[in-house]
């Protein structure tokens, strides 16, 4: 009976981390459904990019108000989690504030945690107001209806609750320390919770001790729940922002990749010595699709992008087409890609890891050609993304499928492309007239 608490705690950790690992495995499996792309080059530049963009939040500062609020929540999350170490030690060994032997350093740490916890609450309350009261446009666009909106608010509620548990726990502890209740010896500094602790004035110390224990358990249990909520939420970015920025495209934004499969064909066409009747050298198999029709045709970085997206909508609010009322929304491209990937994941789960055609594809069923054809390829969305996601690369791969596999471009574009092929200009001018301007007045 003496060890019941510790056993329960261990069970909580095992179940919590067990599910979490299961989710991570599924996440990796799903990302690996994507085609291969080499992003192992230039590791020092990649580390620098990750440190600057993900750790240093360098792209957030463009919009100073959310940047500061986000720093509160981000710093709170990272630093308060140091406290998790102590909670785990206390939980497993039945100690109380095991790290208090650190003395003055411990007091400072607890003080910092408290201030951060308060700032986190402040930050998320303002976030909630921005989403639900001020109703900022980028949080209330069509793709944000339903689950996306609920998810965003859930995160805010969970974070507020967790921080409240943390502060009330400390407040109760501080009160009990003040009255020298049993093992509650005076340690730590409580700049925020000392302001809350007067509410315990006159309350039975045993009840206060119960509140302290309850909040302690609720906090750790809440953290476990939150950790397992991540997989289903846009909040996955707290982890994935790091690999996402590491594996980001470091080339100039204007450089679009040259399709390897096309290179082979074009070099054959350009080679005067190529034998048109030669048997194919490569083993005959399913030839690779040109472009992307479904998530499996995208590369794994694009799928990682989809899971990393925080749905903040900076991309969409900077998109020239979306801001002029078109259907295209770069954020929706990412959300639809994730939705499809999750549906594919469910099919895999239900069929022992084998994909069974469900008659749906990313193209048409999740993302429409109308969205794809609206894009200006201006890179505003790519520039804007705080964690280096490229909605544009997905749009381009899907356009490639539409054009090269389905010949389904808008008719004006077909004319343009025909002109390029026939007379080396997008308009119907003769190549022999290219220098006429020299002699015109």
């Amino acid at each position, binding site marked *: 009976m003496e060890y019941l608490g510790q056993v329960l705690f261990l069970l909580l950790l095992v179940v919590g981390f067990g599910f979490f690992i299961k989710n991570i495995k599924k996440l990796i499996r799903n990302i690996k459904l994507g085609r291969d792309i080499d992003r192992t080059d230039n590791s020092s530049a990649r580390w620098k990019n990750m440190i600057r963009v993900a750790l240093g939040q360098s792209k957030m500062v*463009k919009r100073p108000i959310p940047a500061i609020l986000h720093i509160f929540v981000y710093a709170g999350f990272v630093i308060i989690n140091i406290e998790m170490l102590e909670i785990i030690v206390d939980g497993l060994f039945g100690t109380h504030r095991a790290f208090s032997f650190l003395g003055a350093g411990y007091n400072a740490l607890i003080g910092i945690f408290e201030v951060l916890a308060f700032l986190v609450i402040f930050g998320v309350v303002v976030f909630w107001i921005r989403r639900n009261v001020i109703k900022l446009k980028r949080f209330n666009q069509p793709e944000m209806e339903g689950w996306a909106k609920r998810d965003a608010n859930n995160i805010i509620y969970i974070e507020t609750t967790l921080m409240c548990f943390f502060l009330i726990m400390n407040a109760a502890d501080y009160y009990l320390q003040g009255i020298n209740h049993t093992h509650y010896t005076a340690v730590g500094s409580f700049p925020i919770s000392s302001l809350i602790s007067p509410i315990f004035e006159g309350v039975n110390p045993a009840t206060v001790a119960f509140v302290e224990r309850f909040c302690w358990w609720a906090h750790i249990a809440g953290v476990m729940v939150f950790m397992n909520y991540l997989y289903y939420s846009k909040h996955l970015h707290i982890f994935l922002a790091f690999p996402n920025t590491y594996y980001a495209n470091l*080339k*100039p*934004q*204007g*450089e*679009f990749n*040259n*399709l390897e499969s*096309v*290179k082979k064909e*074009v070099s054959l*066409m350009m080679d005067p010595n190529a034998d048109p009747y030669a048997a194919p050298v490569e083993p005959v198999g399913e030839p690779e699709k*040109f472009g992307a029709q479904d998530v499996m045709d995208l590369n794994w970085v694009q799928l990682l992008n989809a899971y990393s997206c925080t749905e903040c909508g900076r991309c969409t609010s900077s998109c*020239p*087409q979306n*801001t*002029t*009322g*078109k*259907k295209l929304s770069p954020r929706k491209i990412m959300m639809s890609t994730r939705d499809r990937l999750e549906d594919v994941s469910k099919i895999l789960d239900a069929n022992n890891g084998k994909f069974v055609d469900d008659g749906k594809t990313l193209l048409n069923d999740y993302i429409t050609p*109308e969205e794809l054809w*609206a*894009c*200006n*390829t*201006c*890179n*505003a969305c*790519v*520039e804007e993304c705080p964690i280096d996601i490229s909605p544009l690369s997905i749009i*381009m791969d899907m*356009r*490639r*499928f*539409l*054009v*090269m596999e389905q010949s389904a*471009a*808008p008719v*004006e*574009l077909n*004319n*343009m*492309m025909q002109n*390029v*092929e026939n007379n*080396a*200009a*997008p308009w119907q*001018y003769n*190549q022999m007239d*290219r*220098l*006429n*301007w*020299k*002699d*015109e*007045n």
Partner: protein
Amino acid sequence: MSANLVVPTMAEMMARGEQPEVLFWVGCSGSFDDRAKKITKAFVKILNRANVSFAVLGTEEGCTGDPAKRAGNEFAFQMQAMMNIQVLDGYEVKKIVTACPHCFNTLKNEYPDLGGKYEVVHHTQFLKSLLDDGRLTIEGGQFKGKRITFHDPCYLGRANQVYEAPRQLIEKLDAELVEMKRSRQNGFCCGAGGAQLFKEPEHGTKEVHVERTEEAIGTNAEIIAAGCPFCNTMLTDGVKFKEKESSVKVLDVAELIANAEDL
């Protein structure tokens, strides 16, 4: 006046056993579009004035393939690229200047992987280097004290991080350079890129070029400076749509310099 233009072709140069300092890639707009041809001529006038040894490919030039690539037609793009690379390599071209950011981006970033490796600069960068080397002087002339705003072409700015060269040239005109709210990295597209120039826009509430033109007009600039023939077309259309042709002009940076010098 265009009788005075000296525009040698690479073929002529080669026949004379000469190699120019730089190849001027005119591009399809610069060759065929009436508005863009004026930009081409303005740039040639400056090159002539600065005694730059240059040449064009003339009838041997073909679309870089950019619009086809952005539309998703990788075949058409790579065919164009391979043909152009054969021509460029045949003439042993080392350095290319172009007044079109789309050609610039494609030649600079997408050709190397297909075997075409050249030093590629945008005409504003090239003009800036002429200025720095003392080969070109710029005087304000008619633009002295005028309010000019510069529209960042996506494929020059965000795509290739060229923000300063065009601005430094405009400032040399003793003009007052005013910035739109969305400029440099945050520049707002004119609406033409991604092959949109060649098709009708999708259904929406507004046209992209009108949105951008309104922003430019909102700076009270008398001149909207552009560095891209596509942007020029879109913004000129926008100015017409807003019925501001009498008070606002859309000019390429090369035209500003050529006009200031009365070339």
